[in-house]
């Protein structure tokens, strides 16, 4: 009985781990795709004395 309970607990833990890992991977993938397409940098050529007021 005790062994069965442990197996059930272990099984639940494994399932949780799998789900968590899948969610983490999905988030990472989504973040990666999202960050791929974007304006990465804007460089301005400004006329004026940039330290002045």
């Amino acid at each position, binding site marked *: 009985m005790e062994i069965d309970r442990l197996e059930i607990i272990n099984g639940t833990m494994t399932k949780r781990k799998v789900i968590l890992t899948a969610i983490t991977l999905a988030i990472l993938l989504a973040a990666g795709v999202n*960050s*791929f397409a*974007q*304006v990465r*940098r*804007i460089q301005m050529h*400004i*006329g004026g004395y940039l330290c002045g*007021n």
Partner: protein
Amino acid sequence: MYNIQKAVSRLDYAPKLKEIEITDIKKGLGVFVPKADKFVSFADLKETLKKAGYALDSADITIAGKLVREDKNLLLVNESSGQKFFLEGKMLEKLTAAIESDSAIEIVGIWKTKGEKEAAQEYIEPQTIKKSDKVTITKSVSLVKNAVDDEITTIRFTNANFAKANSLPVADEVSEKNKTLAPIRTTSPGLTVFQGGAITPRLYFIKQSLGNLDVYRQVLDISVSYTPTTKLQLEAEIPFSRTSFDDGVNSGSGFGLGNVTLWGKYRFFRKVKTYGDRQAALRFGLELPTGKKTAPTAQAVNAPAFVREQLTPINGGFSPHLDISFSQAGGRFIFGGNIEGILRTERDGFRLGNEIRVNTDFEYVLLPIDYQKPGKELFLILETTLMTRSNGRLGGIKMPGSSSTEFFLSPGLQYAADPRFVIEGSIQIPVFRNSGALALRTNYNLLLGVKYLF
């Protein structure tokens, strides 16, 4: 620099203020990484800089997205925001010849907006295009800062950390730059920060004398300015003064509020070029009769009544000021000057004479000798003041011998500890004095102050 940061940070797509950087003052370069999910607009960027008093000559954009062929147009679609960028230019055919539609690419190009309002479209004239088959696992702004690109040969910056000027496409050379500054005693025609301002507390330690009478003043002058429009600055100046005196027999002291002055400055002229500008402004001030007017009695100090009146924190009553100022900056040198006229009215029968002040200002960026990022600059300042004042009045009577003409030299230092924080000091020394028998003469005037921009 803070003025530019603040102006750009107002844009919907701008990052945090501190992530907007000036990387090369000589070339007028500033960089930032916009928010990934927002539409960007060259026209809006140009407009916000114009309001702050600067001209956006051009802008380079680096963008990753999908190449799309729509009719005869080539477009780049930013998948984060959904914004479309039209590609154009002589080099376009050559650069895109080997790239299929729907390819993931990264472009560095010259950015423009064509059309207005709803019809506005963003255009890029590509300078380099590369295929981006690999997805870089990064997170918007902070990610880009630390991302390392696999194919750095076509894109000339690798670490997207824009702080390093030597990794930028244009700023290859070692550059120099300086930052927030204004003269110390001379009126600046500048407007400090558009839709922002400055708090400037200053401490003056002044010694004056007349015969056996020595006068020491410690003045705390707090100035708060705000610039609501592109050409107008408003300012309030509140002085608190402690005066002590010693005539060899008697001594004493007093403390009180001085006359509060309200200023309005209108900048009517401004021309900018790369690493330089010229500007001029007209400033009008109203000195209000708020100061303490009680003078020491004849028993307290052995001096004529008109001299004793000069021991109060005020020089008279309600007094209009008119000031015209000019400055020119180029490279490490800044030159400026102003002429100020003060018309004084009496308060309880006393006033000093009407006054004209001519100030000149010469500034040089002394340190650092060679530097990449703004901050920690030391400015060497030399100012001159020619002040001439007519005879004053007491009890409604003109007081002969109270006029004065003095010329001062004021060497000073200004240290820009931060884009928003400046420490300054200046010592005013008389070179020439021609004062009447009733006018206190200035022996020295030491100024220590800080300036905080907001």
